[in-house]
């Protein structure tokens, strides 16, 4: 099966041009991009992404400003490269779920990921997403029971986000039996790729992920690299990834 690997970048961070260029460059290797909308209270994120969120907010980044750049990225990358918005529930709820999904549609977003909406609360979001043709990503975790994995697998569209560890973004990836077993169950029931994320930082982490999952997501490492080392280092790392995995 073809792999489905993704990267996460914070929207408009560290600045608009760098963000757009990194997105386009990264999507030469990755199959999809998750775009974070900065939020004041990112409880699922570790220091690197939380700090990126704060820095973006201090610079006046708003959801609309990020959507404008998503629209731009959409015109610069081929249609089979997918764009997901990753945002906390308040952004979607506060704007109005319909209005938010319409903004996704008009900027060329393919799917939405909301880390503080568990499966049990997801219908009010996923039903509107689906009505607008936007994929709704569900999660499985090391804590999920078999029934929960089956339910998430049955309802996920786009891909199924498999969280490698109990924890927040930016920690150390886990490949324990609880998550590997759940990935196996998910792949049996899911119609979409099962992708491993949280703590995937090295080429080796990626290779390990692909032993069990359909793909991996790299976030913290890339956000950090882009911010602290700049676009050239980021670009070199993308080349390194391309050389190590068959695309």
């Amino acid at each position, binding site marked *: 099966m073809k792999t489905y690997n993704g990267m996460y970048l914070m929207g408009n961070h560290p600045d608009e041009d760098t963000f757009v260029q990194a997105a386009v460059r990264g999507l030469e290797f990755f199959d999809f991009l998750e775009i974070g909308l900065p*939020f004041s*209270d990112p409880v699922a994120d570790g220091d690197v992404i939380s700090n990126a969120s704060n820095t973006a907010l201090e610079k006046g980044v708003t959801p609309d400003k990020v959507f404008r750049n998503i629209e731009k990225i959409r015109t610069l990358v081929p249609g089979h490269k997918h764009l997901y918005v990753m945002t906390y529930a*308040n952004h979607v709820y*506060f704007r109005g779920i319909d209005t938010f999904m319409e903004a996704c549609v008009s900027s060329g977003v393919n799917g939405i990921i909301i880390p503080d909406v568990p499966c049990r609360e997801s219908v009010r979001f996923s039903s509107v997403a689906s009505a607008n043709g936007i994929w709704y990503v569900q999660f499985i975790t090391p*804590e999920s029971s078999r029934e929960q994995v089956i339910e998430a697998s049955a309802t996920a569209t786009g891909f199924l986000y498999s969280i490698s560890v109990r924890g927040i973004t930016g920690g150390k990836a886990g490949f324990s039996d609880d998550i590997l077993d759940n990935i196996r169950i998910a792949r049996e029931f899911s119609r979409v790729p099962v992708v491993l994320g949280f703590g995937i930082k090295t080429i080796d982490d990626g290779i390990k992920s692909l032993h069990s999952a359909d793909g991996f997501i790299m976030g913290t490492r890339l956000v950090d690299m882009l911010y602290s080392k700049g676009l050239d280092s980021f670009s070199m790392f993308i080349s390194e990834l391309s050389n190590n995995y068959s695309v």
Partner: protein
Amino acid sequence: MYTMPDEIGYFGEYGGVFIPETLVNTLNELESAYNFFCQDNNMQDELRQLLQHYAGRPTPLYLARRLSEKYGATIYLKREDLLHTGAHKLNNTLGQILLAGYMGKKRIIAETGAGQHGVATATVAALMGMECTVYMGSVDMERQRPNVSRMKLLGAEVVPVNHGSRTLKDAINQALRDWVTNCNSTHYILGSVVGPHPFPRIVRDFQSIIGEESLTQVIEQTGGMPDDAIACVGGGSNAAGFFHPFIHSKVKLTGVEAGGRGMSDGDHCATLTTGKPGILHGCITYIIQDNNGQVLPVHSVSAGLDYPAVGPEHSFWKDSGQVSYAHCSDTQAMRACVELSRLEGIIPALESSHALGYLMEHSEKFRNRTVLINLSGRGDKDMDTILKETGL
């Protein structure tokens, strides 16, 4: 019959479970533990014993004669300031530590604003021999230093939180991050009626003893029901527990939020007056946020009220009109703190001073009425702030 929250954790439109998927089963486990507690006489008896012999319940309902005389009403104070550790917070932490023990958890975490919930958590963790970590915004650590020392003395680790506004909101964020990482070993004793289901219900129920005792005591002392009940509201735990037994009565209930320095953005935390519904810390509720859905900085002289959201049940009560919500400024609360100290020889916490301040500022509304005020905590922890603000 009042049956909120419903079986999926909603108070009408408010509440719910908006947390990372990883915590879903941990919250289910907590709900099962609480349901067991509600059916189990032994556990309930253990809590009753602790509340009586360890914490000092029932707390008095005190007729404040000189205060009543000056403000033209019959004013009773529910003396939660006399509870062990100096505030109502212990009612909840004693209940939750029993749930933690039942679930086999070995480690306790908590957030704290004023430090009262942190002290109450450190206290019960010491009592049960459990490891305890308390997250506290670094701004709050500075303004509530005595409580930081108390927590340390009780054996808790106090972790400063330097993110965001470095107050209660950010302490909750950090506690949630810890919990999602250590959910198997750790129980998070959330200190207010906020957060994901079942916390708003559990905390309200454990705090309802305030209202239940007040109801019995006021009938014993006056032969009837009061006209009004007033409590301060930050997250809203003391108010929720105080109001709950009165919710279907004719008693007029007023929750008083912190009006801070004024009603401009960033100067207050009057969430129910100025906020809009949103999702923060696990539930749908009123939140102080900007037009882009970013949670705004808030201010109150009182660290325990310095919070940009409120419990979902208060949001429901506001919309249904079952409770009225008002606000009291920093200055009015400070004046009330001095006034009560000098009229009654009781130094109230700055949080509770907001409920008193509202009554004093609007005494015409309460003339010749019988008013219960929940004196949720004592003011010892606030001495630095009080001295600075009043120039005493």
